[in-house]
């Protein structure tokens, strides 16, 4: 296949960036998208040019490191698929493919397609846990959890933290990401104990990190590689309001 990769290149966070065309004539349909980028880089190395920087690691869709906006869509054209699981057979011979980093104010570009997503970690640090010390745990089966609750918790916990939800949101909101963690812990009896404090802290952290507000377009769910549901956002908002109402003493 002949493919033209039109790739965003930017030396550093403060430098101007631009789209640069890379024409490759021997792309194999079985190549993964990232292998095709490896191929682009190999041709640059042969010319002693610096490589195009992009983040990636497990290349099997679970670590959440990779993430590119491909032809305007985070993680490319396929539903429920990370960038690393996308293959060149999804494109046509002769195509020009636009490749950009995830863009959001809270995700500054480091270089080219590499971005800084530590804002997501900072949200998790603001209470995205159960306050239990290792070794203080009760016998595992003393906590009974209905199968449907365990499965609901799992579905929310399956988030890989890639940030595609933020990248596809016109407001660059992190509501899907944040609400998924809140929902995961809130579906479990051991997580419910700190629910109120958690939701307030995490929502505030989300705002402090510079993410936008959610306006319920559900663009996030559409590109989530784990198909995390926007129901969690509704739940988070309800919980947040309820916690605030309780805390200011309107309800006793």
């Amino acid at each position, binding site marked *: 296949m002949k493919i033209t990769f039109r790739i965003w290149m930017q030396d550093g966070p403060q430098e101007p960036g631009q789209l640069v065309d890379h024409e490759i004539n021997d792309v*194999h349909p*079985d*190549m*993964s998208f*990232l*292998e095709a980028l*490896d191929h682009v880089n*190999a041709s*640059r*190395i042969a010319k*002693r*040019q*610096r*490589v195009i*920087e992009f983040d*990636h*690691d*497990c290349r*099997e869709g*679970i*670590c*959440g*490191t990779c993430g590119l906006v491909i032809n305007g869509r985070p993680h490319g054209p396929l539903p429920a*698929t990370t960038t690393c*699981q996308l*293959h060149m*057979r999804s494109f046509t011979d002769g195509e020009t493919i636009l490749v950009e980093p995830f863009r959001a104010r809270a995700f500054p570009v*480091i270089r080219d397609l590499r971005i*800084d997503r*530590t804002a*997501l*970690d900072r949200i*998790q*640090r603001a209470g995205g*846990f*159960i306050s239990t010390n*290792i*070794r*203080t*745990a*009760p016998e*595992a*089966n003393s*906590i*009974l*959890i*209905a*199968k449907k609750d*365990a*499965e609901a*918790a*799992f579905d929310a*916990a*399956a988030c*890989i*933290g890639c940030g595609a939800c933020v990248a596809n949101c016109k407001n660059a909101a992190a509501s899907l990401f944040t609400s998924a963690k809140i929902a*995961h812990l809130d*579906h479990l009896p*051991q*997580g419910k104990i700190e629910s109120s404090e958690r939701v307030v802290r995490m929502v505030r952290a989300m705002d402090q990190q510079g993410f936008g507000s959610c306006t319920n377009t559900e663009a996030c769910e559409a590109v989530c590689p784990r198909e995390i549901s926007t129901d969690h956002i509704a739940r988070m908002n309800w919980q947040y309001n309820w916690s605030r109402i309780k805390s200011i003493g309107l309800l006793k």
Partner: protein
Amino acid sequence: MQLDAKIPDGPVEQKWSRYQGSCRLVNAANRGKLQVIVIGTGLAGGGAAAALGELGYSVKSFCFHDSPRRAHSVAAQGGVNAAKNYQNDSDNVYRMFYDTIKGGDFRSREANVYRMAELSVALIDTCVAQGVPFAREYGGVLENRSFGGVQVERTFYAQGQTGQQLLLGTYAALNRQIDAGRVQMFSRHELMDLVLVDGRACGVIVRDMITGQLERHAAHAIVLATGGYAKIYYLSTLAMSSNATAIWKAHRRGALLANPSFVQVHPTSLPPLGKHQSKLTLMSESLRNDGRIWVPAQPHDDRPPKEIPDSQRDYYLERRYPAYGNLTPRDIASRAARERIDAGHGVGPLGNAVYLDFRDAIQQHGKEEIASRYGNLFGMYEKITGMNAYEQPMMIAPAAHFSMGGLWVDYELMTTIRGLYAVGECNFSDHGANRLGANSLLQACVDGYFILPCTIGNYLADFVGKPLPSIEEQPFVQAVQHSRDSIDRLLSVQGTRSVDEFHRELGAILTNRCGIVRSGDGLRCAIEEVRRLRKEFREDVCVPGESCQPNSELEKALRVQDYLGLGELMCRDALERNESCGMHFRTEYQTESGEASRNDEEYCYVAAWQYQPDGEAVCYREPLKFENVAMISRSYR
């Protein structure tokens, strides 16, 4: 050098409690004055940092990912073993201990393995308390499933993403300590070197991967939790950035490396599709419960699988191992596949795969039932290969997967460098010559959560009231200079071949000669080839870009440079072990029926290698004693 494993006295089931009852302690009020550095944030490293933070130590945690949640523990699929006996199927700690020792083909250390089995029970409690959403029965209790090499159901799991869910539990515990100010997190930092003062590990040199700055950090003790090195084969199931740099630097500074050639090859990965391939994707071992493995009976038979009648198919595992059939352990299944492929029976465009066929299972149970069991895996298969496994058999092949070998550690998980610990996959102690499925998550977790936080106190007790060494001291200055020189040297070669080309060639050498099957001649040849390649790398590698900016080619070059050292040592280790055991199969040492032939009289030991700056590594031996299990030969016929 005398290797002292420091195994406590007494019966095996009392050793750990005796140790805990007699080790020295650090008063809670003093712990905050003691600085510990943890490298790596997977289950072992993240767990250790969190547990040390909870105890009150001052912890610095480093990872090369952009977030600690991305460590490669995240990719483990199957599950985690624990001797809970929830299924009332006569499981207990001893049985789990026995299964692990036997599965490792009697090349692991009894006391360590027993402790791992013993602590598995509390691990599940801890994970549940953290909010890990394990699979449940309708009544709300935890569910279990069976895994290769055992006859009980002791595996706890969270769909096919157990590693991810356990790691998110660890990540949450780590976040809680970061939030509390007890752990300082440094992401996108990679270890460059270890600093020793008077023979003790006192600090590290790390490279900030954004600015390229070389930083010096001092500590009272250092914990390496840097995972496995199977990516040395280039094509493996590991993540692209998984590397051996930390353990290789420790090795060069004096830590012994044990059994480096023991690397597990997983039988059910997807085969390489072409030379562009950068990694191999694992398909869960659970598929072998219903899939039947076969190849065409005639070599080079390129008919589509459906056109090959049953009489012309060779279900070679069922033929050779009627008792276990398609469920033989990993080492045996991988070896049998390799044997068929080498004999010309391989399938697929490159002739490098075997079939895993669900035709009979679909006929027996119906497509819906098979979809409910393996739907996500069939979907993943289709995503990667573009083929529908309900309609035609999957094509699978063996792939490098897990390193049982690693830094030599004693019972306290301390390496031969005082103050330097190794936890999780980067140490060697629990899996012998073959790891059982669902034991890797277990080992990483118990090392990090339970064992290290206890044993490190026994060492740190000496340092209460002692200041940290200054990072202005000579050893730090020299180590930084050494790292800087090494980077400058790589950038200045300006050769003609990319780092990946060297890595691929190294991988091919090791896959062919130090992989599933090894021979004395092949290994001697491989040592020469790796040496030649190392020389070419020094003279002809091309690393574009600069050191003061994000530079992924430089990162790769630094890792491959270390792999080129480790590759030779792996071959040496395999060459000197004149027996076959577990995954280590030397063609010269096999039974008449082609099975591994162990030599307990001469090789029942751990081979621990010491680096020599001006010559070949020297091997020290730790004899293995089996007092609680009888050494039998493994048979799965």
